């Protein structure tokens, strides 16, 4: 693969946290789906970044999925009750 140019990034200490919170993983509590444990450690700016990154990632995931389902939709389907 010819790697496309990627703009230089200024690392943000919250980057690893944002990346994790932007995933679809959420722990299941007995009566509800709970917040990602790391979400509480994010600043307001980090939370917005995680929201925006999740929005963009889900679009990509759905486009890669044969049924057009993102990891969020797949997580929900695996937990139908």
């Amino acid at each position, binding site marked *: 693969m010819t790697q496309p140019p*990627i703009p230089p990034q200024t690392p943000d200490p919250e980057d690893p946290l944002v990346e994790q919170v932007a995933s679809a993983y*959420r722990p299941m509590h007995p009566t509800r789906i709970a917040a990602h444990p790391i979400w509480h450690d994010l600043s307001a700016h980090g939370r*917005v970044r995680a*929201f925006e990154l*999740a*929005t963009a990632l889900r679009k*990509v995931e759905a486009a890669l999925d044969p049924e057009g389902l993102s990891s969020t939709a797949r*997580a929900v389907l695996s937990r139908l009750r």
Partner: protein
Amino acid sequence: MNEDLDFLVIAIAQGDVHAFSRWLASAEAPLRASLVRFATVVDTEAVLQEAMLRIWSVASRFEPDGRPHGLLRLAVRIARNLAISELRRTRATPVASEILAEEPEPTAWAPPDPMLQKVLRKCHEALPDKPKEALGARLASQGAEPDEVLAHRMQMRLNTFLQNITRARRLLAGCLSKHGVQVDPELLS
């Protein structure tokens, strides 16, 4: 406005998982967008997933009001109420009035772009091994396992796993961009 998804309601109410999958595929984006104003105060991903699960549970009792997008509007209302409940449960400070404002009507959303799908598959195939494996592990887990578990299974440190996820999305975004597909800037962040 987009296709009214209410034609799926009867099948969903009868427990048709395939119909619910179709509904999820279209409803997720506008439902997520309806939660944007809660992004700094509650974990909207958890609220979104819980709202979707509740739609599955209540679909058999759903009564259309004659207006389009009835099930989606119900989902927006459920998600908003869940977000406010969570906010009240976890915060001692009063909730800002703009957050408690009436729920918005679902806005139009972009249908899947066939060009994006075609190019994305090519770009995904061309990813280097490690980023592709990390992204694949995330997709295969279907949101059931935290990144620490996925990293451990791949014999990677968590930071290495996350760096591979970051690299995968940046490479995909760069590749899409190179093929003339407009990408969300967040993918390059």
